[in-house]
């Protein structure tokens, strides 16, 4: 399964995931409280420096990840131009860019396995009070496994639709059969799970 982790190894890849997430929380709060335009400009420059540090290839990937935000930034900018509150709008757009870029930086430099480890660590108190966290953890693995399975089935459904219809794209029409296939799969997988010890705590060992 493709993830958003960057293949370009940066220094940030070696930082512990928990530390990066904690720093992101602190930085995000700081950006939200910072109301001065100059301060926001400095913050954005700093974030840009983090991206260029590991080289241009990484910086370009970072810029591409930021592209969907452009539409949001444009909408906000348009509102503030229309209402004549330019200074306020500039602070908000800059803050938006810095915050999304910083969060993307954490995502691009942290592998999924490390994120899952942090999650496991964060949920430790739940296990101490006797809650079984195995069902959600098992569910996470199942989703990761089943996204490619379901998208293959979806592609097959779309292809057979194209074979019998003059329309080129099946679009939403495959949603019903796809949901039906998911329900069928659920029955089979649940049976297989039960046969292998199911959700009981001991099954982890």
């Amino acid at each position: 399964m493709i993830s958003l982790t960057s293949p370009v190894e940066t220094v940030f890849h070696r930082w512990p995931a928990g530390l990066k997430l904690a720093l992101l929380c602190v930085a995000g709060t700081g950006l939200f409280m910072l109301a001065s335009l100059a301060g926001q400009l400095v913050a954005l420059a700093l974030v840009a420096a983090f991206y260029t540090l590991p080289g241009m290839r990484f910086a370009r990937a970072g810029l591409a990840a930021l592209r969907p935000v452009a539409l949001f930034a444009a909408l906000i900018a348009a509102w503030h131009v229309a209402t004549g509150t330019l200074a306020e709008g500039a602070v908000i757009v800059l803050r938006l860019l810095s915050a999304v870029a910083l969060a993307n930086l954490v995502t691009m430099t942290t592998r999924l396995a490390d994120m899952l480890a942090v999650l496991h660590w964060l949920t430790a108190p739940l296990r101490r009070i006797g809650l079984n966290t195995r069902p959600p953890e098992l569910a996470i693995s199942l989703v990761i496994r089943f996204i490619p399975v379901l998208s293959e089935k979806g592609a097959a459904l779309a292809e057979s639709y194209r074979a019998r219809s003059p329309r080129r794209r099946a679009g939403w029409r495959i949603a019903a059969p796809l949901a039906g296939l998911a329900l069928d799969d659920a029955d089979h997988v649940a049976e297989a799970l039960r046969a292998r010890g199911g959700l009981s705590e001991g099954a982890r060992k």
Partner: protein
Amino acid sequence: MSKVSERDVVMIALFAALIAVLGLVPKLTLASGIPITAQTLGIMLCGTVLGAWRGAAAAALFCLLTLLGLPLLAGGRGGLGVLMTPWAGFFVGFPIAAFVTGLVMERMRALPVAAGAAAGSVFGGIVALYVFALAWYMLAKPAGLGEAVTVAALPFIPGDLIKAVLAALVTQALAKARPGALPSRG
């Protein structure tokens, strides 16, 4: 709380995967120029098919995996950056939308499947989601109600109404193809 069965866990996981796969369906563009994707259709289906709490769990699982760094949102977006725009309420609110959709579906057993699913999708996928997302927008940006409605809600409502109709049609087709297999009406 009743015991969670293997079937519940697997169904929740598979519907979380379904939301992701529906995000890959090529998007249509409305006359207003706003792209609509089948992703929120997936959220509505979680509620109409799985019911309130299982639907909410599937949506929450989808959100969690997206935040952890899988590119599951339509257009291949994902990661923690999703949380940082003022529009994030539309993403964080997915479990609430699925829950309300499922609740309406479960409570309105007297209605035919399609009508129940349409009502659920409108209340959950539109009313509940928009109330939550607009409140989020007003706090996160920060903004007034007028601005939030103009910039964050109006452009998306036509697409979401279409999706509520589609969710009803898909749920009805599913109920016909597999009688008695809708856990929301179990």
